[in-house]
């Protein structure tokens, strides 16, 4: 019962992430919606499965899956957001300070239109 409730809450978080991915208007904003809400959602579902399961072999599988998900999901989001920022730039909105353009040498590349390494 408790495990199914936790799974329901996690699935609701995954649905919220999906709504954010559809509704938000820029790739970085969509990534923001997905990477936060869905990480917690999947972890909630995994905890729900761990509550209802008693076999030690399956419990260690769930623990390993949760650990690997926690370890590997944020670097993948970071890589993808960095590539998105380099390729597409920041969204054209007021009040945004583009702090990454100087260390990544994006401004000079956008000005002289040289081929990228």
């Amino acid at each position, binding site marked *: 019962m408790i*495990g*199914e*409730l*936790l*799974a*329901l809450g*996690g*699935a*609701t978080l*995954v*649905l919220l*992430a*999906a*709504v954010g*991915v*559809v509704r938000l208007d820029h*790739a970085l904003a*969509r*990534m923001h919606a*997905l990477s936060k809400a*869905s990480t917690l*959602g*999947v972890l909630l*579902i*995994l905890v*729900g*499965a761990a*509550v*209802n*399961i*008693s*076999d030690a*072999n*399956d*419990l260690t*599988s*769930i623990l*390993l*899956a*949760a650990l*690997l*998900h926690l370890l*590997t*999901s944020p*670097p*993948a*989001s970071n*890589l*993808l957001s*960095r*590539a*998105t920022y*380099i*390729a*597409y730039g920041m969204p054209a909105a007021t009040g945004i300070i583009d702090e990454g353009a100087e260390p990544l040498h994006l401004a000079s590349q956008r000005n002289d239109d040289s081929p*990228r390494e």
Partner: protein
Amino acid sequence: MTEATFAILIAATALFTYRLCVGPSLADRSIALNGLLLVGMGGIATHAAHTGQGAFLPTLVAIALVGPIGSGMIAHFIEGRGK
């Protein structure tokens, strides 16, 4: 309750598939694919929570290992192509 959970996951699948088909850039499609992967993980774990049997749980480990590698490779491709 498990039926409600699967219904919610199916709705999330529909939304992610919409973004996968429509999404203007490659990064958007990659995000949608990542979301579909999460929905799959959630479905497997929900099934395990419902039945109490963990026959499919090693699949979760494989998905958690391999999925972000694909996302990182797409990121590398976007970065190298420059668009």
